[in-house]
């Protein structure tokens, strides 16, 4: 489950990164181009350019563990979600639109913060965008400071 605080933050343009690992447990990094909560937040779709991040995407077989961290650049509020990959497919139709909309909104947000466009190009590259769906098992607050790493809800019943 994704706690409300996280889903609210995901309404904003936030920077997104994910990590997977290969059979030798070597971690691989990718930037994501937006996300979308599904099944009431029990699962999440994230969009990633396979052309730019071949290693991280190659590790995304069903069942593979995945970590996803997002950060609001204006105040560094950061959360991490961990889970297991359910499926991976080309981002088509509404998924492709979501990734495109994210790229536009994120670029505008970064430019408003004074980041030059030629830098943003490196970070928000599209190209062979895939949708990675994963079950959200755990979430953690990661905002820099003493509270970093704290596990978040769901509240105990």
């Amino acid at each position, binding site marked *: 489950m994704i706690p409300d605080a996280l889903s609210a933050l995901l309404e904003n343009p936030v920077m997104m990164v994910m990590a997977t690992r290969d059979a030798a447990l070597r971690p691989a990094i990718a930037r994501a181009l937006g996300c979308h909560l599904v099944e009431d937040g029990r699962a999440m779709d994230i969009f990633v350019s396979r052309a730019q991040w071949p290693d991280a995407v190659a590790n995304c077989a069903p069942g593979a563990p995945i970590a996803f961290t997002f950060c609001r650049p204006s105040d560094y509020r950061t959360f991490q979600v961990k889970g297991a990959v359910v499926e991976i497919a080309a981002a088509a139709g509404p998924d492709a639109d979501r990734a495109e909309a994210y790229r536009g909104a994120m670029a505008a947000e970064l430019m408003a*913060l004074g980041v030059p466009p030629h830098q943003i190009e490196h970070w928000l*590259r599209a190209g062979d965008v895939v949708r990675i769906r994963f079950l959200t098992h755990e979430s953690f607050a990661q905002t*820099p400071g003493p509270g970093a*790493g704290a596990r978040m809800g769901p509240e105990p019943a």
Partner: protein
Amino acid sequence: MTIRLRDIRDCFEGVVPSIIATTDSGGTPNISYLSQVYYVDDGHVALSNQFFSKTAANVAATGRATVMVVHARSGAQFLLDLAFERSETEGALFERMAAQLRAVSSQHGMETLMALRSADVYRVLGCRAVTSAAAAAAPPEEPAVPPSERLAAAARLSAAIGAETDADRMLDRALDGLAEAFGFENLMILVPDAAGRHLTTLASRGYQTAGVGSEVDFGRGVVGIAAEARRPVRLCDMSRGRRFAAAVAAPLAGDAQRVIPLPGLREPMSQLAVPMLSGGRLRGVLFAESEARFRFTPEDEDLVALVAAPLAAALATAAEPEEREPEAAPPGRALPAGAAGIRIRYFAHDDSVFIDDAYLIKGVPGRLLFHLLETHARSGRRDFTNRELRVDPALRLPDLKDNLETRLILLRRRLAERNAPIQLSRPARGRLRLELSGQPALEVVPRG
């Protein structure tokens, strides 16, 4: 292809956040932002261990990490495969990282949150560029002057400073030389007080007012942190940080009229502060700033350090008791006939001096000036030697012997900057003379 770290040093300036991915022993990945990855050498980087505890635990378990660093100017991204080597909790690398972290976090008002626990050193197994359509865009600009020529210029300037016989002239030579040889437009030299609480501006270049006598607290701002840590501190992109002005010592209530404004850019983007050390002691801080981003490179840090060294040595030498006899001085001019009086008020509680109701200076330079004026009022003397000031018990200077010379430079420059009716001249080596354009009338305000 593996990329040499030295060719992507802009990635290690802490401008764009880095990213670190690890796994636990069971293979669950973790991914976290990281304020800065530090360049150690071509084969090593260091990470600051502050509070990313899951990362630390994973590295302890597996010894491995993947890090992404971002080129500060172009935005290009690079992936580093890392193997953990060791944690350092003291030493040059740790101190440098701790000072840098304090400087960066003080910009964000997070001083207390960001204490460095250890500097974790990793071997770089591989470094490769992340492919990008923008790969050809905006390559980093190379400096117009090749490094070897800049090194030679720094060495020449350093030698020229060392060849000066007088600390006062060395200061000017250093600032003029840095401006001419490297185009640094905004410069200051600050010196610490005996207690190590404040730094006082002794000389500056490139500001509307020289600000001689203005103060910065130890530990605050780039200058104060470099002084406290005795390490260079360099910031490349302050666009998201707070203004340096916040680092000016906050005046005590009711003391505002006794504060000299620190010169400084309103919106600096780059700052560099290099401590001046000699004989194991901090003698001052050489500070440069600019409104341009990325104005100062790691190489600039080294060049400024080359210039700071002879300056520190000069200030240290100036602090030693004069062994030679003072030179004979030519006679001074008599007071012009009919000159107006000069009203001097001296406040005993902080040694502050006001001339014709305008604040001049406080602390040791204030005490020195009032002592000279009092002696003049009593005996008519206008000529003094540095040596007699050093040993005069009336000045209560036992703790200050070591920086009498810098206090005299400060006082002389402050009087000149204010165009005060009292000036201090140096008619000969080791001598001081009061130049008065009126008869001083002294008033002492005793401690409240």
